[in-house]
């Protein structure tokens, strides 16, 4: 029995030694593999990196490109955890617009405005509003934009024609937009839009100039009681009360089914939604959709993607080269446009002949020209690390207005107090 126990101890020790040895071997390989560039990204943006991998291999045959892609929320949670612990950080980190304010304000990313990057020198080559989105209040540049999302109103031409409504009726003003919606609902049964909150999200951006923030001014003062928020809430409430929205938040099953079955006549979103509609949301509706400007003459952006370098990245020089390839190389940007239906942040790519090509899904409309015009007019809005939190507060108060009949002034006052409470530090 004693011999058996001793033998087990020896076996356990041997297994431990083997495991340790294997780990040491792996660590050795990792050390040796400084020529591997790890890019952490998320779908569909990962397709752009994969499409560029051949170019990368040609330019840098000695540096293997490793693309790690997680689902959108998982990716940003994983990157948050990696920045927190300093462990598991990639060399290049893709960041979505929604998280860029928070990540830019953190101390975990390389300042690409500083040497050796000097990223601000690239600023004039990009859509004018894209760089400020990735900058912190101290002037640091956390990331370089890869694609942008000029806001557009996508609408079902067949539905509005049946309702006797014109494109001009949809875009002239917010009031005419809602009146058109009433006709559409009465004559076709279709909802004007998926969610009344879509109106709110656009109208709160009205009248903004370069350097303005949506929720905060330059001194951190909360702006949610300004007239644009009041108007946004009033218009959203009017749409809900008239029964013009399906009450379906974006990206839910209700939302996709509504768009697919033609029960929703319009959708305000970034121009990139066209690709989603074509590829999986409503491929059978090809030729029925059209794109136009947002109602009320507002120019806004929806989303966008960025590439950043963590401070503790192992391979910063190669990471910067990769980011330059993805963001400043004309051919890569145009390829991304073709692969993803994304809209390039690089101005030179926006002048590619591809922009003049008709889009079959939009009934042959050369809509990229329109999106280019919109992108040129979008103001360079300043971001704040608490924008995401303020968005949550406004959404919650808006819901109280719609369902509980809470007075708008009271809702916005409560939102202001909540935002100030949370942004206390």
């Amino acid at each position, binding site marked *: 029995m004693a011999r058996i126990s001793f033998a087990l101890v020896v076996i356990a020790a041997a297994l431990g030694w083997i495991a340790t040895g294997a780990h040491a071997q792996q660590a050795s390989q990792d050390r040796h593999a400084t020529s591997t560039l790890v890019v952490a990204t998320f779908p569909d943006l990962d397709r752009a990196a994969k499409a560029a991998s051949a170019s990368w291999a040609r330019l840098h045959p000695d540096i293997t490109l490793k693309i790690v892609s997680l689902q959108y929320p998982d990716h940003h949670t994983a990157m948050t955890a990696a920045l927190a612990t300093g462990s598991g950080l990639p060399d290049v980190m893709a960041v979505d617009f929604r998280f860029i304010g*928070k990540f830019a304000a*953190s101390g975990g990313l390389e300042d690409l405005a500083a040497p050796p990057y000097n990223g601000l020198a690239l600023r004039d080559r990009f859509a004018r509003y894209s760089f400020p989105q990735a900058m912190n209040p101290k002037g640091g540049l956390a990331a370089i934009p890869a694609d942008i999302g000029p806001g557009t109103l996508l609408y079902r031409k067949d539905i509005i024609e049946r309702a006797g409504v014109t494109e001009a009726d949809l875009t002239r003003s917010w009031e005419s937009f809602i009146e058109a919606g009433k006709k559409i609902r009465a004559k076709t049964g279709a909802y004007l839009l998926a969610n009344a909150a879509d109106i709110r999200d656009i109208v709160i951006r009205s009248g903004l100039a370069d350097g303005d923030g949506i929720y905060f001014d330059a001194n951190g003062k909360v702006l949610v009681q300004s007239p644009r928020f009041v108007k946004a809430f009033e218009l959203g409430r009017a749409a809900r009360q008239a029964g013009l929205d399906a009450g379906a938040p974006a990206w839910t099953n209700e939302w996709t*089914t509504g768009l697919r079955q033609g029960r929703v006549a319009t959708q305000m979103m970034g121009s990139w939604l066209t690709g989603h509609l074509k590829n999986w949301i409503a491929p059978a509706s090809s030729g029925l959709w059209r794109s136009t400007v947002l109602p009320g003459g507002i120019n806004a952006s929806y989303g966008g993607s960025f590439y950043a370098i963590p401070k503790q990245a192992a391979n910063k020089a190669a990471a910067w080269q990769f980011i330059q390839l993805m963001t400043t190389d004309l051919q890569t940007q145009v390829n991304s446009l073709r692969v993803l239906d994304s809209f390039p942040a690089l101005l030179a790519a926006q002048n590619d002949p591809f922009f003049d090509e008709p889009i079959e899904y939009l009934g042959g409309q050369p809509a990229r020209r329109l999106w280019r015009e919109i992108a040129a007019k979008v103001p360079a809005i300043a971001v704040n690390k608490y924008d995401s939190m303020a968005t949550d507060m406004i959404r919650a108060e808006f819901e109280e207005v719609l*369902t509980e009949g809470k007075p708008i002034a009271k809702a916005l006052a409560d939102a202001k107090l909540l935002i100030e409470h949370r942004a206390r530090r």
Partner: protein
Amino acid sequence: MRAVDPTLAAPRAPTRRRTRHQRARELAPYLFIAPFFVLFFVFGLFPLLFSIYLSLHQWDPTDGLAAMRWVGFENYWFALTDPWFHRSLWNTLWFSVVCGVPQHLVAVPLAYFIHTSFKRGRDAIVGAYFVPYITSSVAIALIFATLFSKDYGVINSVLHAVLGVDPINWLGDAHTTKPAVAFIVFWRFLGWNLVLYLSALQVIDKELYEAAALDGCGRWRQFWHIALPLLRPMMFFAVTLTIIGNLQLFDEPFILVDPESGVSLSVMTTAIFMYRLAFSDGDFGTASAVSWLLFLIIALLTWCNSRLFNRGETRDAA
């Protein structure tokens, strides 16, 4: 002095071997239980202690570990004065009562009915009730999201066809989200409580029922005067589990109601509030403080539950 006498050294060799052998034997048990303790310390104890430490600091994880700043109990004060924390507590307590109480009110008589009425096929019936408990909460949430759909859901279609009711936005209107989610939680955990009560009923001596029947007691009186009092220990156990589970409710409301939408506030439990503080607002310190406040509330309610059942037992004994 250092020279070794071979006559003395020779008999020592087996002693040294024995000592090594004995040491190995002494160490072996520790080696074998080491994996559990290593895992427990790394994934159990350390996070627990670290969350206490974290709750006393301000920390945005994207700034890195070095960015932690000592704030003492400010995070606790901040949470206690936050209107959303109050709202989340109210939602959590609402779910605890509305999901929890019916689970037991239905499970106890149902278990008694199944216990006394089914000899054959009982396992199949219990299994059917238990299936929701072992099914993935994500799968359940997705299926119910489809059933509850405003324009395309079966529930609204049936309500419209039978009662002429206009479509209800079950998961998109703050008035209906709570009842919809509560129903799913009730449906999901009914089977679990049923199994608990059924197992307790099976160990009650049959002679008690037979004696009561001879004395002229019907099924209802047997249930009320025999089954129910003897189920008390299991009731305490089941209610305690329900309190703990419902106060930590996360999956169903989080998946069913889009957390990005404003209406999600109507089903925001304290666990969801904690998650949003950490992963949406990047305030891990306050999120940790909320987790400890939630722990204190759970401990307090569990203690109250224990007192309630013990007092009942003491009164019965007297």
